[in-house]
């Protein structure tokens, strides 16, 4: 066999894909890395000669910008509470659904999946009504058992938790499907063997089910973590970052700087900070998995 032919064929196959990936993914990342070192704004966009190189100024300014630091703190708050909650609840739903194997299972699979494919704006309208402090359903239900009205979206910490609740509800569908697929691919013989050994339900869950799903769990955790670090839609449509900047996330901050105020350089710098955090968080997870 001709050696060089052997070498070139795979490249021919992946060439177009790599090229597209480069043009639409890597090149924009590189360009925005370049932009993050400049003071590019709207007039710079129209006339490139007005763009100045400012070195690390944007980054220095970012870490002195109270609003950005607050957004970063909020994002960590979302991640620390949201990720475990989202992973655990979708796992729980998947296990419960797997328990039944009839119409109940398929009906609820649809019920839990629907939020994931519903338009976020429609969701925001409905949830704004639910959360409304005056006539929202949640406060009405609480009033029935004599609990004072909760300022769902009006107090920074409560508002963050409200958004987490909404996001967990919305994101459960996809993770649940992945868990369900993993659950169904666990060979039955393990459970049969455990039955013979006299293991109870908890033993089987912790010794067989969870370990067999470790890859699915890892995958869900990584994607969920990345998703929550880029938390954007919920604060964007529900609170626009308020009250008192209490629900602003890093991704929303980037949007505000970049597209509302047209500070492209500053926005690009912020997005690189976020990029770095996402990469580090993901690497840490891979590292932890290896040590398993």
């Amino acid at each position, binding site marked *: 066999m001709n050696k060089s032919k052997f070498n070139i064929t795979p490249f021919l196959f992946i*060439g177009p894909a790599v090229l597209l990936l480069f043009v639409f993914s890597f090149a924009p990342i590189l360009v925005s890395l370049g932009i993050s070192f400049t003071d590019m704004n709207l007039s710079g966009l129209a006339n490139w000669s007005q763009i100045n190189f400012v070195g690390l100024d944007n980054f220095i300014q970012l870490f002195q910008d109270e609003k950005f630091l607050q957004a970063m703190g909020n994002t960590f708050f979302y991640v620390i509470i949201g990720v475990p909650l989202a992973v655990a609840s979708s796992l729980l739903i998947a296990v419960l659904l797997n328990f039944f194997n009839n119409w109940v299972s398929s009906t609820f699979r649809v019920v839990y999946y629907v939020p994931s494919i519903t338009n976020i704006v429609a969701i925001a309208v409905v949830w704004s009504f639910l959360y409304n402090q*005056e006539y929202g359903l949640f406060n009405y239900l609480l009033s029935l058992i004599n609990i004072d009205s909760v300022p769902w979206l*009006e107090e920074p910490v409560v508002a963050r938790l409200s958004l987490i609740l909404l996001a967990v509800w919305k994101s459960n569908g996809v993770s649940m499907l992945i868990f369900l697929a993993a659950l169904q691919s666990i060979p039955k013989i393990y459970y049969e063997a455990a039955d013979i050994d006299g293991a109870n339900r908890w033993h089987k869950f912790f010794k067989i089910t969870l370990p067999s799903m470790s890859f699915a769990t890892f995958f869900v955790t990584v994607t969920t973590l990345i998703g929550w670090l880029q938390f954007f839609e919920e604060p964007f449509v529900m609170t626009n970052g308020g009250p*008192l900047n209490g629900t602003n996330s890093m991704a929303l901050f980037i949007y505000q700087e970049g597209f*509302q105020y047209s500070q492209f350089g500053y926005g690009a710098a912020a997005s690189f900070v976020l990029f770095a955090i996402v990469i580090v968080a993901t690497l840490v997870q891979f590292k932890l998995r290896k040590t398993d």
Partner: protein
Amino acid sequence: MKQNKLGFLLVVMLGAMLVLGACSSGGSSGGSSDEDTITVWTMTPELEDFVKEYEDESGVKVEVQAIPWDNAHDKLLTAVASGKGPDVLQIGTTWVAEFAEAGTFLDLTDYIDEYPNFNPDNFYESAVETTKYDDQTIGIPWYVDTRVLYYRTDLLEEVGYPEGPETWEDVKDAATQLAARGDDQYGIEIPQVDQNFPFMLAWEHGWQYEEGEGAANFEKPGFKEGVELHHTFFEEGMAQLTEGKQLYQAFSDGSKPMFFSGPWEINSINEQIPELEGQWDVHVMPEAENNNSMIGGAHWTVFNNTEKVDQALDFINWMADPETQVAWYDTVTELPANMEAWEDPKLAEDDKISTFGEQLESTQAVPVIPEFETMAQELIDTLEQINRNDADIDEALKEYRNQVSSILSK
């Protein structure tokens, strides 16, 4: 062997051509290529049918592309970045500075004498002010917009203001009495996210923004008085701080009998709460030292690299005509920028609309500087700190001045 390398190259180049081809499609010049067609970008979809009359008169085909306000900013950004835009475009008054700085528009200064309807004397002075940036005139006013007080006549009569409150003292008095009616009853709705409202309060206390002075502007006493007034309504429970009921519901059940809004609200109230007919009215802004309201609205501009300047200007000339402006008011209730149009009985004899006409006599424009948007947003955050977080007003304003100087120095 050589052939294979060639093949590889070929595939790569084909791929590149495909990709680049996809990026560059979309026409080589601004607007449409046909000589007798102009493209117009607007944020009001009704314009599409409205221009039929002009098409019949002039024989020029007008391609109207309606962009929702929410997407308009992004869409304009793309047009600026690529240099490919329409021939004529509508621009909101508050976006003038930002996009003019980026050189989006053709300078119309030299054309003003050529078209009779472009005469600045035809329009409200404060509207013309917002068409100017850096000694250029970048647009011709199309419609204007201002804010007035909407109030419930029956409820205000009960507290002694059947004709509506004249001054801010009256408003405070009425609102205090109305808020005392019980729990969940308020006197007035004070906008918390409206960028213009805090500036209106400051103007009414004699404050003016001078471009040369930068952050020092916000040290002038009138500005602080405006902020204090804003805070008073929340501090004393006259206005609700939280989101609360939907405004029309609160207006209709009487829990918020006063609010500030623009002309479009007249139709909305008539449509959505028709049962309130005869129980509400509009009043010009309450007075402190003056009763200046903001002027907003939109202008017609010409995109900088269009090849059809004459056609574009002719279209704008038609849109600026008093008769067209009355017809446009008839179509969507947007207020004419042309003062002659206001003499038409349709506007002059409508009580509510003529209140807007009266208010337009005392309006002013927010500063036409590119940094305004960021400055105003910071101010809203500052007010939030004061109203929700009990921040000290002096401290908060000092912090705000620091923010402004860093925004202006960027």
